Structures are given as C-alpha cells and as structure tokens.
C-alpha cells in the first residue's frame, strides 16, 4: 500500500449557521488522482481549501504524513503552517496570478522568498516548468497579456515551482472558453501520468473518468459515495449520485 499523505477525520465547517462540511472523512494516498464531483454549493471548494488550511475547519482532524496538523484548531505555528502549505500546490478556478508580477516573477516569488532558493536556480527551474506547460515563450510576459488557458497553465507551473507533494485543483477549467479547456486538461493529464498525487474538483466528467484513480461524489457537505471511476460512473449505488450523474452526463 502506498503512503498515506493526507488524512481527514470528522471534518466540519460552519459559516454562520450554514453547515458546509458535515463529518467528512477522506484520505489521500501518494500517487492517487482523486476527483471530487458534486453540485454547486456542495462544499467541494471548502473541502479543498481545508486541506492546506487556507480555510480553517470548525472541527475535526487533519494529518499530513501522519503528523496531526489540525485537531479542532490549527496545531501549527505560523512558520510551520506556511511550510506545510508549500507541500501542496493549489490551482484556483480564477487562476489568481499576481497582477503586479510577470510570469517569471509569479513562478519564482515563493521559491526565492519562502523556500530561499538561489535566484538562478529558481529561474532555471521555472524555465523548465514553463517548457513543461508549453509556455517557454511567455516567461517574461505579463499575465494580462495571456489567454485564460495560458494563465491557468502558468498558475499550474507556479504551483509546481514550490515542488509540492500533492497538487490541489479547484475547478481549473470552469472559467475557461472551450478551446482553452483542452490545453489545460492536457497539462493535467501529463502531470497525472508523471505520478503526481492530485486532488481535483471538476465538472469535466469525461476527464474525471479518464484520469481519476478514485472519484468522490459530494452533496450538501457530505461524501455521498466514492469508488473507482468505473464503479461511480457506471454503477452508482446511491440515488443522489444517480440523479446527479443523470443531470450532468
């Protein structure tokens, strides 16, 4: 069995009096590609942001590499928390490239300032990553001059630049035009093939089926059902899963 990277137990998140996550249990093993699907508002983004503590859960436990990092409250010092976050690359629906920095500066900001790599190494590594996402010629471009698909590929490269153990994707193609979706999925597919551990929230069902090693269906803050892509897409057990799949497929 592969190593357990992230373990989540009884996770709850409440906004005011809205329960967004209800007793969520969920593990991520090294090398897995976990795909999370579910209707809008079901708590997918919230769950993903709890994984790297971008949002603090209300209660529950989170362990990273068997180290308990959250137990009803964050157990980490500021610097330890920042360090844990550099183990997880996060890709946002809206890209969130830094508008005041060019592509190269976006990629090297954390490596130089947080990971304290030397500048030359950081730049070389960034050039390598940009090549990987097919944007070698955009190294010194400004984000505002990139298409949506290019922005998201830069964002993926930026997340990879911190050398994370796992990549978290929150609907990476939902803000893209159809012609831009393919190029981003292609980059993600290659990443999965290279063995990267990934957790992906997406509405791209065909893609989920193709690259997922495990699929989780969420509804109303709960994990309703999980299984292999074949199980979940072709033989769903729960009524709610069937209803959702019928609506989206």
């Amino acid at each position: 069995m592969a190593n357990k990277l992230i373990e989540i137990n009884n996770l709850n998140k409440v906004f005011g009096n809205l329960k967004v996550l209800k007793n969520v249990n969920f593990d991520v093993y090294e090398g897995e590609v976990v795909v999370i699907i579910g209707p809008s508002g079901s708590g997918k983004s919230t769950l993903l942001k709890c994984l790297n503590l971008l949002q603090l859960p209300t209660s529950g436990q989170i362990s990273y590499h068997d180290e308990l990092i959250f137990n009803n409250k964050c157990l980490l010092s500021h610097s330890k928390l920042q360090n844990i976050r550099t183990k997880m690359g996060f890709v946002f629906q809206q890209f969130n490239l830094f508008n005041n920095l060019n592509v190269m500066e976006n990629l090297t900001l954390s490596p130089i300032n947080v990971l304290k790599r030397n500048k030359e190494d950081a730049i070389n590594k960034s050039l390598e990553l940009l090549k990987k996402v097919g944007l070698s010629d955009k190294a010194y471009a400004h984000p505002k001059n990139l298409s949506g698909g290019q922005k998201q590929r830069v964002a993926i490269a930026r997340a990879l630049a911190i050398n994370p153990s796992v990549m978290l994707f929150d609907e990476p193609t939902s803000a893209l035009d159809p012609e831009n979706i393919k190029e981003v999925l292609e980059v993600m597919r290659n990443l999965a093939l290279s063995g990267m551990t990934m957790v992906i929230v997406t509405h791209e069902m065909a893609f989920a089926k193709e690259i997922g090693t495990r699929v989780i269906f969420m509804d109303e803050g709960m994990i309703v059902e999980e299984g292999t892509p074949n199980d979940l897409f072709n033989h769903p057990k729960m009524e709610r899963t069937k209803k959702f799949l019928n609506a989206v497929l």
Partner: protein
Amino acid sequence: MGLDFSILQDYIGLFLQGLGMTLLISLITVLFGTIIGTPLALIRLSKSKVISIIATSYIEIIRGTPLLLQLYIFAYGIPLAFPFIRFSPFVAGIIALALNSSAYVAEIVRSGIQSIDEGQLEAAKSLGLSYALSMRKVIIPQAIKNVLPSLGNEFVTVVKESSIVSIVGIADLMKVTNTISSQKFRLFEALLFAALLYFIVTFTISKLVNYIERKLSVSHG
C-alpha cells in the same frame, strides 16, 4: 489705481525661497504621511477588533478635528503643558501636517487594499507566503498603483493646506507673501503672484501623477 507687478521684481528670490520651503514641507509631510499611513491602514484592517479600533479611532479623530487646531496643539499646547518638550515651529508644523496627512493616506491605502481581489492573497498564502510578505510583495504594490491618483490628490491637498503653518511663523510661500505685501502695501499683486506659484506647483503634480499612472498601466495590468 491699477495693478503693478513690477515692484515684486526685487522679491522674486524671496518668493522662490518661500516656495522652496512649501515644497520641502509638503514633501516631508507626504513622505511621513505615507510611512505612518500605510501601516495604519494595515492595522485598521487587522482581524483583531481591539487593534483595529485603535487605528480607527486615531484616523477618525484626526479627520474629525481641524488641522489648525492640531497645529496649535503641537506648536503651543504641548510646549506649554510640557515645558521640557521643545519643538521649533518647523518641527511642530511638520508633525501636525504629517499626522494629519497620515490619517487620510491610511484611508486611501485601505481602500486600495480592499479593492484587490481576495484571490491574490489566497494564492500568496497557498504558496507559503506569510501575511506580511504577501502584503509587501503582492497586495500593497497593486494597492498603491490603484490609489496613485488619490495619493497624488493628497499631495496637492498638502501643498495647499501646508500654507496654514505660516501662522506659527514658518517662512513658507504664504508667510513670505504676507511679509512682502505688508512691506510694500501691494497686497493684491503679491497674493496673485503667490496664487500663480501655488497653481503651477499643484498643476505640475497633477500632470506628473497622470503621466506616471499612464506609464504604469502600459507596463502592468
């Protein structure tokens, strides 16, 4: 009796000295106003209610009381109450102006920070940046760019409002104008000439800010 500007000829040098003083005071004021105002904005935005209220109170009190009164406090009030504290009029004027300006700059910077999409901070955090580093490298540079026109306006305001320090005896453009006009009994000419000098300065600053703004929007998004 018509206007006669020729008698001002001998005083051009003095006018320019006054103008120099006005510019010096304004620059120092804006510099310290920004140095104090920027952290003040961050403190006001702090998640801790107590800390935030301290900054908010300061800002509201400064903005809610007359600058002239603030100037009197530093020029006369404090030296009277605490005889061991001695400011020159110049220092008292600078302190009053800078503290006053810092409250306005703080509000300008705060609105600038709040205008930045939350996703920027979220992305910075996700890459392991501390709050302070995120602010310094990502949020504040964008915020400052967004509020550059407002900061430029603040500079213009300071140039004009700084004339108030002439009251405590600083030889700025306003003070010099008063002196000259009372010596020569040519009040109107002196005032018009001073107005022209003030206007040239404020107009130039406005144009300069527009220019920098355009430059920035060409090079960055």
